[in-house]
């Protein structure tokens, strides 16, 4: 590439070195980072999105009694998964109108992943009959493990991207000598300067958040990335279990006795937990060897009202319902990890807190996006022949279009697929996901064949149109149009619809601004070289 000057770090000041490091650490996995940031941002509302994507499931105007629901689902699971070694139920709360459960399936089950999972209707205990969809869970899982690849690979890739981000943040701060002053500087309509100022504003305003979210993201999967201490320290499974107990509320499944004894009342166990933590603040019910004489049940505390993911649970003997132990604290390092983990997920907060998370995280997305675009803006001015840029430049330019504007289209297409695919349909949930990727691939194709600026404008308009029409599609295809949601006070449905319009407006503004900007070659033809730095690029988004 033609940027040897940028790459050579030897013999230069630390600020230039850090500037180069910032540029390349940010760029190399930048497209993955952008996708992680955006899907992660919407994941702060993944439960709401899941509700929107299962419109057949009525909204819960009040949270049902968790104890009753737990018993109902436990009964259902003993029918669905008899002889399972373990099951786990996530109870409905203020944000979930369905009950999610998973259970281990016996080893050697053909085609089995080793576990089954399903959503249940809290009112009936039956599996939900709504359309097959992964809901907001898809964005959430994509955010840290992607798709079409083994989960472990995806998580390593996410970890590498996060590590690059961390380096980019630290080197970015060092690069910036006037970080505070620059935050109050904004030069509108000045091309490269404006991009730099925007990038600085997005970065500096959210800096503590961006740093926190990157570091805590690494912490969520640190045992995968840094297993060495664990490997050296623990010589046997019993020692290993000491560590696991610090991290989660899953009870180690001992040996089943082989003697069949039904589970005692799960309702009574949850009742006791409710007395301890509050009526609506029970998180999960986990059972090992249910139906066996050796059964154990753990009832965990909910995630609301405390900033920690450290395990807090009550353990019961499965056959008698006798309380065996209450666990409410872990060691200092484990608690630190629990707090960092909770800070990343942001599930402790109320609606206002989650909106703040959403907004600052959105700013982080804009930081990555503006950084990516800036790479091309900066280099466009130095191109020897602006009409025929070198390969690396074109590659970055096209990838930027597909990964920024294209992702908006693909994510919206995922929601369109949710409304348009027939129901029932074999493998429907996977079809939604496949369509997301098919559409995304088409945006890349489009970005490759069209001139860069046209591609930006067309894709931003396409995203805007899809977003704008989504509430219309929702009104046509479901019983819950916007006016109905507003009248009912259904803020989940109304919120998604209105948010679509807000985002449609944002994309329209970006499209208009991009279309107005003149490319350098056009500019050159019209004027002389009086103010070459005042020229913006064809690429604009973020």
């Amino acid at each position, binding site marked *: 590439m033609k940027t040897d000057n940028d790459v050579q770090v030897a013999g230069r000041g630390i600020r230039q070195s850090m500037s180069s490091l910032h540029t390349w650490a940010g760029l190399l996995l930048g497209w993955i980072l952008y996708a992680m940031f955006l899907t992660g941002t919407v994941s702060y509302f993944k439960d709401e999105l899941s509700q929107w994507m299962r419109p057949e499931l009525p909204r819960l105007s009040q949270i049902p009694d968790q104890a009753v629901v737990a018993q109902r689902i436990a009964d259902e699971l003993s029918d669905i998964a008899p002889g399972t070694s373990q099951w786990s139920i996530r109870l409905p709360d203020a944000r979930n109108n369905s009950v999610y459960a998973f259970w281990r399936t016996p080893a050697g089950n053909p085609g089995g992943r080793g576990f089954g999972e399903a959503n249940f209707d809290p009112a009936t205990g039956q599996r939900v009959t709504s359309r097959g969809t992964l809901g907001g869970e898809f964005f959430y899982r994509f955010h840290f493990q992607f798709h079409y690849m083994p989960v472990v690979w995806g998580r390593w890739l996410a970890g590498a991207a996060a590590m690059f981000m961390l380096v980019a943040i630290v080197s970015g701060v060092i690069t910036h000598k006037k970080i505070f002053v620059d935050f109050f500087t904004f030069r509108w309509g000045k091309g490269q300067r404006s991009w730099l100022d925007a990038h600085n504003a997005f970065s500096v305003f959210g800096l503590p958040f961006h740093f926190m979210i990157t570091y805590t993201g690494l912490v969520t999967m640190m045992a995968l990335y*840094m297993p060495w201490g664990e490997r050296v320290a623990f010589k046997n499974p019993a020692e290993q279990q000491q560590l696991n107990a610090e991290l989660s509320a899953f009870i180690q499944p001992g040996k089943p006795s082989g003697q069949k004894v039904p589970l005692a009342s799960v309702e009574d166990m949850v009742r006791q937990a409710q007395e301890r933590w509050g009526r609506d603040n029970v998180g999960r019910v986990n059972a090992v060897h249910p139906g066996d004489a050796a059964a154990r049940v753990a009832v965990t505390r909910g995630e609301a009202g405390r900033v920690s993911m450290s395990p807090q649970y009550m353990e019961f003997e499965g056959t008698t319902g006798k309380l065996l132990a209450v666990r409410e604290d872990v060691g200092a390092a484990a608690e630190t990890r629990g707090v*960092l983990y909770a800070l990343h997920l942001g599930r402790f907060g109320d609606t206002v807190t989650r909106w703040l998370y959403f907004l600052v995280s959105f700013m982080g997305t804009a930081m990555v996006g503006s950084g990516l675009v800036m790479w091309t803006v900066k280099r466009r001015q130095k191109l020897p022949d602006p009409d025929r840029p070198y390969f690396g430049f074109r590659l970055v330019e096209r990838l930027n279009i597909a990964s920024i504007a294209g992702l908006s289209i693909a994510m919206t297409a995922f929601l369109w697929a949710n409304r348009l695919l027939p129901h029932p349909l074999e493998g429907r949930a996977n079809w939604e996901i496949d369509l997301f990727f098919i559409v995304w691939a088409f945006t890349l194709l489009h970005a490759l064949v069209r001139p860069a600026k046209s591609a930006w404008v067309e894709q931003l308009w396409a995203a805007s149109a899809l977003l704008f029409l989504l509430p219309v599609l929702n009104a046509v295809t479901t019983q819950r149009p916007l006016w109905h949601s507003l009248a009912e006070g259904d803020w989940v449905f109304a919120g998604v619809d209105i948010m679509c319009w807000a985002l449609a407006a944002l994309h329209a503004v970006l499209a208009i601004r991009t279309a107005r900007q003149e490319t350098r070659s056009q500019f050159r033809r019209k004027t002389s070289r009086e103010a070459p730095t005042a020229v913006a690029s064809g690429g604009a988004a973020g």
Partner: protein
Amino acid sequence: MNALIHRLRATGPLISRIVAALFGGYAVAALSSVAVLALPMTKPQAVLTGMLASFAIYAGAVIWVFAVRSALKAWAGLIVVAVPLSLAAWSVS
């Protein structure tokens, strides 16, 4: 041939730094996550402390590698840190 040598001369130190940052940095972070076990803490807490701190150490190592004046110095710094960490790690394994 001459041109190739010239290119290598020009890019060699940079590649050396990139390797030092990616793998040397990880190695130092991994070593430190084991070395923590030598501290007077219970094993589970020490293991978790090592994991939690490792990413800061990794990031710090990468910054060091690109901040110093030469690739040689970058490696030297990593080795100077790695030696005591290795001793501590070796003592607990």
